[in-house]
Protein backbone atom coordinates (compact mmCIF):
# COMPACT_ATOMS: atom_id res chain seq x y z
CA UNK A 1 0.00 0.00 0.00
CA UNK A 2 2.71 2.45 0.82
CA UNK A 3 6.28 2.86 -0.20
CA UNK A 4 7.19 2.65 3.39
CA UNK A 5 6.71 -1.07 3.19
CA UNK A 6 9.47 -1.44 0.66
CA UNK A 7 12.42 -1.95 2.91
CA UNK A 8 14.87 -3.39 0.40
CA UNK A 9 16.15 -0.13 -1.01
CA UNK A 10 19.05 1.55 0.67
CA UNK A 11 19.36 4.35 -1.91
CA UNK A 12 15.79 5.39 -1.63
CA UNK A 13 16.42 9.06 -2.05
CA UNK A 14 19.38 10.11 -4.11
CA UNK A 15 19.69 13.12 -1.86
CA UNK A 16 20.37 11.10 1.20
CA UNK A 17 19.47 7.71 2.49
CA UNK A 18 19.88 7.12 6.17
CA UNK A 19 19.87 3.52 7.30
CA UNK A 20 16.90 4.14 9.55
CA UNK A 21 14.68 4.30 6.49
CA UNK A 22 13.78 0.65 6.66
CA UNK A 23 12.92 0.74 10.32
CA UNK A 24 9.22 1.19 11.11
CA UNK A 25 8.46 4.65 12.42
CA UNK A 26 6.92 5.09 15.84
CA UNK A 27 3.41 6.46 15.48
CA UNK A 28 3.03 10.14 16.24
CA UNK A 29 0.00 11.21 18.14
CA UNK A 30 -0.01 14.65 16.63
CA UNK A 31 -0.21 13.23 13.13
CA UNK A 32 -2.82 10.67 14.05
CA UNK A 33 -5.39 13.37 14.55
CA UNK A 34 -4.68 14.78 11.10
CA UNK A 35 -4.96 11.31 9.65
CA UNK A 36 -8.65 11.19 10.59
CA UNK A 37 -9.62 13.13 7.52
CA UNK A 38 -7.16 11.66 5.06
CA UNK A 39 -5.46 8.40 4.33
CA UNK A 40 -3.02 7.80 7.13
CA UNK A 41 0.16 7.19 5.14
CA UNK A 42 -0.45 9.77 2.51
CA UNK A 43 -1.39 12.63 4.82
CA UNK A 44 1.77 12.77 6.84
CA UNK A 45 4.11 12.43 3.90
CA UNK A 46 2.06 14.89 1.88
CA UNK A 47 1.98 17.56 4.54
CA UNK A 48 5.64 17.07 5.34
CA UNK A 49 6.56 17.40 1.71
CA UNK A 50 4.19 20.34 1.36
CA UNK A 51 5.80 22.14 4.28
CA UNK A 52 9.27 21.55 2.92
CA UNK A 53 8.17 22.64 -0.53
CA UNK A 54 6.63 25.75 0.97
CA UNK A 55 9.89 26.51 2.76
CA UNK A 56 11.79 25.96 -0.48
CA UNK A 57 9.42 28.15 -2.51
CA UNK A 58 9.57 30.87 0.09
CA UNK A 59 13.36 30.83 0.24
CA UNK A 60 13.57 30.69 -3.54
CA UNK A 61 11.39 33.76 -4.01
CA UNK A 62 13.12 35.63 -1.21
CA UNK A 63 16.51 34.92 -2.72
CA UNK A 64 15.33 35.88 -6.20
CA UNK A 65 13.99 39.18 -4.88
CA UNK A 66 17.17 39.78 -2.97
CA UNK A 67 19.28 39.16 -6.04
CA UNK A 68 17.15 41.46 -8.17
CA UNK A 69 16.92 44.19 -5.55
CA UNK A 70 20.56 44.65 -4.79
CA UNK A 71 23.36 43.66 -7.08
CA UNK A 72 25.80 43.68 -4.16
CA UNK A 73 23.67 41.64 -1.73
CA UNK A 74 24.84 38.27 -3.04
CA UNK A 75 28.51 39.19 -3.04
CA UNK A 76 30.80 38.12 -0.27
CA UNK A 77 33.06 40.26 1.79
CA UNK A 78 36.23 39.90 -0.28
CA UNK A 79 34.40 40.80 -3.49
CA UNK A 80 32.78 43.78 -1.80
CA UNK A 81 36.16 44.94 -0.52
CA UNK A 82 37.59 44.66 -4.03
CA UNK A 83 34.68 46.64 -5.50
CA UNK A 84 35.03 49.24 -2.76
CA UNK A 85 38.75 49.50 -3.54
CA UNK A 86 37.97 50.00 -7.20
CA UNK A 87 35.44 52.69 -6.41
CA UNK A 88 37.85 54.41 -4.04
CA UNK A 89 40.66 54.31 -6.59
CA UNK A 90 38.39 55.70 -9.22
CA UNK A 91 37.09 58.49 -7.01
CA UNK A 92 40.68 59.30 -6.02
CA UNK A 93 41.66 59.59 -9.66
CA UNK A 94 38.65 61.77 -10.39
CA UNK A 95 39.41 63.96 -7.41
CA UNK A 96 43.00 64.41 -8.55
CA UNK A 97 41.75 65.31 -12.00
CA UNK A 98 39.30 67.81 -10.53
CA UNK A 99 42.06 69.37 -8.42
CA UNK A 100 44.30 69.70 -11.47
CA UNK A 101 41.50 71.29 -13.45
CA UNK A 102 40.74 73.69 -10.62
CA UNK A 103 44.40 74.65 -10.51
CA UNK A 104 44.42 75.27 -14.25
CA UNK A 105 41.28 77.35 -13.93
CA UNK A 106 42.85 79.37 -11.14
CA UNK A 107 46.01 79.88 -13.17
CA UNK A 108 44.08 81.05 -16.19
CA UNK A 109 42.00 83.39 -14.07
CA UNK A 110 44.95 84.86 -12.22
CA UNK A 111 46.80 85.08 -15.53
CA UNK A 112 44.07 87.19 -17.05
CA UNK A 113 43.90 89.19 -13.81
CA UNK A 114 47.60 89.93 -13.79
CA UNK A 115 47.41 90.80 -17.47
CA UNK A 116 44.63 93.28 -16.75
CA UNK A 117 46.63 94.72 -13.84
CA UNK A 118 49.65 95.07 -16.12
CA UNK A 119 47.55 96.90 -18.69
CA UNK A 120 46.18 99.24 -16.02
CA UNK A 121 49.67 99.89 -14.73
CA UNK A 122 50.90 100.54 -18.26
CA UNK A 123 48.05 103.01 -18.85
CA UNK A 124 48.89 104.78 -15.60
CA UNK A 125 52.54 104.87 -16.58
CA UNK A 126 51.63 106.31 -19.94
CA UNK A 127 49.84 109.20 -18.21
CA UNK A 128 52.65 109.81 -15.68
CA UNK A 129 55.43 109.55 -18.22
CA UNK A 130 53.43 111.63 -20.67
CA UNK A 131 53.15 114.50 -18.18
CA UNK A 132 56.75 114.29 -16.99
CA UNK A 133 58.17 114.06 -20.50
CA UNK A 134 55.94 116.87 -21.80
CA UNK A 135 54.03 114.65 -24.20
CA UNK A 136 50.64 115.36 -22.60
CA UNK A 137 48.96 118.62 -21.57
CA UNK A 138 48.59 118.94 -17.80
CA UNK A 139 46.76 120.88 -15.15
CA UNK A 140 46.96 121.22 -11.41
CA UNK A 141 48.00 123.56 -8.57
CA UNK A 142 51.15 125.57 -9.08
CA UNK A 143 52.65 128.98 -9.75
CA UNK A 144 52.31 131.70 -12.36
CA UNK A 145 55.60 133.62 -12.60
CA UNK A 146 56.10 136.73 -14.70
CA UNK A 147 59.60 138.11 -15.30
CA UNK A 148 59.83 141.58 -16.87
CA UNK A 149 63.15 142.94 -18.08
CA UNK A 150 64.49 146.12 -16.64
CA UNK A 151 67.24 148.10 -18.20
CA UNK A 152 69.62 145.17 -18.30
CA UNK A 153 69.03 142.11 -20.42
CA UNK A 154 68.10 138.90 -18.66
CA UNK A 155 70.54 136.33 -19.89
CA UNK A 156 69.71 132.79 -20.85
CA UNK A 157 71.82 131.55 -17.95
CA UNK A 158 69.61 133.31 -15.39
CA UNK A 159 66.45 131.93 -16.97
CA UNK A 160 68.02 128.49 -16.96
CA UNK A 161 68.73 128.95 -13.25
CA UNK A 162 65.05 129.62 -12.71
CA UNK A 163 64.20 126.43 -14.54
CA UNK A 164 66.73 124.45 -12.51
CA UNK A 165 65.44 125.80 -9.22
CA UNK A 166 61.88 124.98 -10.20
CA UNK A 167 62.93 121.46 -11.07
CA UNK A 168 64.80 121.11 -7.81
CA UNK A 169 61.71 122.21 -5.93
CA UNK A 170 59.75 119.41 -7.54
CA UNK A 171 57.94 121.08 -10.41
CA UNK A 172 56.24 118.46 -12.52
CA UNK A 173 55.35 120.44 -15.61
CA UNK A 174 56.82 123.80 -16.74
CA UNK A 175 55.86 126.06 -19.61
CA UNK A 176 57.64 129.28 -20.68
CA UNK A 177 55.78 131.52 -23.09
CA UNK A 178 54.03 128.56 -24.62
CA UNK A 179 57.11 126.34 -24.80
CA UNK A 180 56.96 123.12 -22.78
CA UNK A 181 60.10 122.53 -20.78
CA UNK A 182 61.51 119.03 -21.12
CA UNK A 183 64.74 117.38 -20.07
CA UNK A 184 66.51 118.48 -23.22
CA UNK A 185 65.31 122.10 -23.07
CA UNK A 186 68.05 124.73 -23.51
CA UNK A 187 68.36 128.49 -23.32
CA UNK A 188 70.74 130.50 -25.50
CA UNK A 189 71.27 134.22 -25.72
CA UNK A 190 70.07 136.03 -28.83
CA UNK A 191 69.92 139.61 -30.07
CA UNK A 192 66.36 140.05 -28.97
CA UNK A 193 65.84 138.13 -25.77
CA UNK A 194 66.71 134.46 -25.69
CA UNK A 195 66.21 131.35 -27.78
CA UNK A 196 64.48 128.46 -26.01
CA UNK A 197 64.69 125.11 -27.79
CA UNK A 198 65.30 126.89 -31.08
CA UNK A 199 62.40 129.34 -30.68
CA UNK A 200 63.24 133.02 -30.14
CA UNK A 201 61.49 134.44 -27.12
CA UNK A 202 61.61 137.90 -25.62
CA UNK A 203 60.53 139.38 -22.34
CA UNK A 204 58.24 139.35 -20.51
CA UNK A 205 58.71 135.69 -19.68
CA UNK A 206 55.60 134.01 -18.34
CA UNK A 207 56.16 130.77 -16.52
CA UNK A 208 53.43 128.32 -15.77
CA UNK A 209 54.57 125.76 -13.24
CA UNK A 210 52.64 122.79 -11.88
CA UNK A 211 53.78 121.49 -8.51
CA UNK A 212 53.23 122.09 -4.81
CA UNK A 213 52.84 125.90 -4.55
CA UNK A 214 53.86 125.90 -0.88
CA UNK A 215 57.17 124.31 -1.81
CA UNK A 216 57.80 126.03 -5.10
CA UNK A 217 57.36 129.65 -4.00
CA UNK A 218 59.82 129.68 -1.10
CA UNK A 219 62.29 127.74 -3.22
CA UNK A 220 62.15 130.21 -6.10
CA UNK A 221 62.07 133.32 -3.88
CA UNK A 222 64.90 132.26 -1.62
CA UNK A 223 67.37 135.08 -0.94
CA UNK A 224 70.34 134.78 -3.24
CA UNK A 225 68.36 132.45 -5.51
CA UNK A 226 67.52 132.73 -9.16
CA UNK A 227 64.73 135.28 -8.67
CA UNK A 228 66.80 137.38 -6.31
CA UNK A 229 69.59 137.51 -8.87
CA UNK A 230 67.15 138.73 -11.54
CA UNK A 231 65.70 141.47 -9.31
CA UNK A 232 69.15 142.69 -8.27
CA UNK A 233 69.95 143.02 -11.97
CA UNK A 234 66.93 145.29 -12.57
CA UNK A 235 64.31 142.75 -13.52
CA UNK A 236 60.86 142.65 -11.97
CA UNK A 237 59.18 139.46 -10.99
CA UNK A 238 55.75 138.51 -9.81
CA UNK A 239 54.96 135.14 -8.33
CA UNK A 240 51.37 133.99 -7.95
CA UNK A 241 50.17 130.81 -6.27
CA UNK A 242 47.25 129.26 -8.17
CA UNK A 243 44.98 126.35 -7.38
CA UNK A 244 44.68 125.52 -11.06
CA UNK A 245 47.41 126.02 -13.61
CA UNK A 246 46.79 124.76 -17.12
CA UNK A 247 49.60 123.82 -19.46
CA UNK A 248 48.43 123.19 -23.01
CA UNK A 249 51.76 123.09 -24.78
CA UNK A 250 53.20 119.66 -25.55
CA UNK A 251 56.43 118.31 -26.90
CA UNK A 252 56.86 115.00 -28.70
CA UNK A 253 59.96 113.41 -27.18
CA UNK A 254 62.56 112.31 -29.71
CA UNK A 255 63.43 108.65 -29.97
CA UNK A 256 66.71 108.02 -28.19
CA UNK A 257 69.38 107.34 -30.78
CA UNK A 258 72.03 105.72 -28.61
CA UNK A 259 70.41 104.68 -25.39
CA UNK A 260 68.36 101.50 -25.26
CA UNK A 261 66.42 100.21 -22.29
CA UNK A 262 68.35 97.89 -20.02
CA UNK A 263 66.02 95.01 -19.34
CA UNK A 264 68.50 93.03 -17.28
CA UNK A 265 68.78 93.35 -13.55
Amino acid at each position, binding site marked *: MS*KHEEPDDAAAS*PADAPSTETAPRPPMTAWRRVRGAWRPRATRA*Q*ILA*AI*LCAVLGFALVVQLRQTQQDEFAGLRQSDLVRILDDVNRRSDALEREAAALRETEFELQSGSDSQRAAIELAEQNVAVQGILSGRLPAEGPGLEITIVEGTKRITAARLFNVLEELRNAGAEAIDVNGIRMVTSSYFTDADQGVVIDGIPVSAPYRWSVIGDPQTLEPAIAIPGGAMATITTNGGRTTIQQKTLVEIRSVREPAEPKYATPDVGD
Partner: protein
Amino acid sequence: MVTSDYSMGEYNVIPVFGLLIGIAAGLFLEPTVPVYLQPYLPIAVVAALDALFGGLRALLDGMFDDKVFLVSFLSNVVVAALIVFLGDQLGVGTQLSTGVVVVLGIRIFSNAAAIRRHLFKA
Protein backbone atom coordinates in the same frame (compact mmCIF):
# COMPACT_ATOMS: atom_id res chain seq x y z
CA MET B 1 2.61 -1.58 -8.96
CA VAL B 2 -0.63 -0.29 -7.67
CA THR B 3 0.76 1.61 -4.77
CA SER B 4 3.09 3.57 -6.96
CA ASP B 5 0.36 4.82 -9.28
CA TYR B 6 -1.91 5.59 -6.42
CA SER B 7 0.69 7.42 -4.43
CA MET B 8 1.83 9.49 -7.42
CA GLY B 9 -1.65 10.84 -7.85
CA GLU B 10 -2.09 11.67 -4.22
CA TYR B 11 1.38 12.79 -3.28
CA ASN B 12 1.90 15.33 -5.96
CA VAL B 13 -1.00 17.60 -5.23
CA ILE B 14 -0.44 18.87 -1.71
CA PRO B 15 3.34 19.45 -2.01
CA VAL B 16 2.70 21.43 -5.18
CA PHE B 17 0.18 23.51 -3.26
CA GLY B 18 2.79 23.94 -0.54
CA LEU B 19 5.29 25.16 -3.08
CA LEU B 20 2.77 27.64 -4.49
CA ILE B 21 1.84 28.86 -1.00
CA GLY B 22 5.53 29.37 -0.17
CA ILE B 23 6.10 31.32 -3.37
CA ALA B 24 2.99 33.43 -2.73
CA ALA B 25 4.11 34.09 0.85
CA GLY B 26 7.52 35.18 -0.40
CA LEU B 27 5.92 37.45 -2.98
CA PHE B 28 3.42 39.09 -0.65
CA LEU B 29 5.41 39.32 2.56
CA GLU B 30 8.48 40.72 0.80
CA PRO B 31 10.87 39.80 3.59
CA THR B 32 14.46 40.97 3.58
CA VAL B 33 17.19 38.44 4.12
CA PRO B 34 19.16 39.07 7.34
CA VAL B 35 22.75 40.00 6.66
CA TYR B 36 24.19 36.95 8.43
CA LEU B 37 22.06 34.65 6.25
CA GLN B 38 22.83 36.30 2.94
CA PRO B 39 25.85 34.18 1.96
CA TYR B 40 24.08 30.91 2.84
CA LEU B 41 20.57 31.34 1.47
CA PRO B 42 21.48 30.82 -2.22
CA ILE B 43 23.43 27.66 -1.43
CA ALA B 44 20.65 26.45 0.88
CA VAL B 45 18.10 26.98 -1.88
CA VAL B 46 20.17 24.99 -4.35
CA ALA B 47 20.62 22.21 -1.77
CA ALA B 48 16.87 22.16 -1.11
CA LEU B 49 16.25 21.96 -4.85
CA ASP B 50 18.55 18.96 -4.94
CA ALA B 51 16.59 17.34 -2.15
CA LEU B 52 13.34 18.10 -3.94
CA PHE B 53 14.52 16.49 -7.14
CA GLY B 54 15.82 13.52 -5.17
CA GLY B 55 12.45 13.12 -3.52
CA LEU B 56 10.71 13.37 -6.87
CA ARG B 57 12.95 10.68 -8.27
CA ALA B 58 12.30 8.44 -5.25
CA LEU B 59 8.61 8.99 -5.76
CA LEU B 60 8.83 7.83 -9.33
CA ASP B 61 11.04 4.96 -8.25
CA GLY B 62 8.24 4.01 -5.90
CA MET B 63 10.41 4.29 -2.82
CA PHE B 64 9.48 7.74 -1.50
CA ASP B 65 9.68 8.06 2.20
CA ASP B 66 8.63 11.23 3.97
CA LYS B 67 11.15 10.80 6.75
CA VAL B 68 13.98 10.29 4.30
CA PHE B 69 12.77 13.31 2.40
CA LEU B 70 12.64 15.43 5.55
CA VAL B 71 16.04 14.34 6.76
CA SER B 72 17.69 14.67 3.38
CA PHE B 73 16.11 18.07 2.84
CA LEU B 74 17.24 19.45 6.18
CA SER B 75 20.66 17.80 6.14
CA ASN B 76 21.32 18.99 2.60
CA VAL B 77 20.51 22.56 3.56
CA VAL B 78 22.48 22.44 6.80
CA VAL B 79 25.53 20.74 5.28
CA ALA B 80 25.63 23.12 2.32
CA ALA B 81 25.39 26.14 4.62
CA LEU B 82 27.99 24.62 6.91
CA ILE B 83 30.42 24.08 4.06
CA VAL B 84 30.00 27.67 2.89
CA PHE B 85 30.39 28.93 6.45
CA LEU B 86 33.54 26.87 6.88
CA GLY B 87 34.85 28.15 3.56
CA ASP B 88 34.20 31.72 4.64
CA GLN B 89 36.08 31.13 7.86
CA LEU B 90 38.99 29.59 5.96
CA GLY B 91 39.03 32.35 3.38
CA VAL B 92 38.00 30.14 0.48
CA GLY B 93 34.27 30.84 0.69
CA THR B 94 33.92 31.79 -2.96
CA GLN B 95 35.69 28.70 -4.28
CA LEU B 96 33.98 26.34 -1.86
CA SER B 97 30.50 27.66 -2.59
CA THR B 98 31.25 27.30 -6.28
CA GLY B 99 32.25 23.70 -5.60
CA VAL B 100 29.06 23.05 -3.64
CA VAL B 101 26.94 24.53 -6.40
CA VAL B 102 28.74 22.39 -9.00
CA VAL B 103 28.23 19.19 -7.01
CA LEU B 104 24.57 19.97 -6.30
CA GLY B 105 24.08 20.91 -9.94
CA ILE B 106 25.47 17.58 -11.08
CA ARG B 107 23.16 15.74 -8.66
CA ILE B 108 20.16 17.76 -9.85
CA PHE B 109 21.04 16.89 -13.42
CA SER B 110 21.35 13.17 -12.68
CA ASN B 111 18.09 13.19 -10.72
CA ALA B 112 16.40 15.09 -13.51
CA ALA B 113 17.72 12.50 -15.97
CA ALA B 114 16.26 9.67 -13.83
CA ILE B 115 12.92 11.50 -13.65
CA ARG B 116 12.98 12.02 -17.36
CA ARG B 117 13.61 8.31 -17.93
CA HIS B 118 10.65 7.44 -15.72
CA LEU B 119 8.27 9.87 -17.39
CA PHE B 120 9.28 9.58 -21.01
CA LYS B 121 11.07 6.23 -20.98
CA ALA B 122 13.97 7.98 -22.70
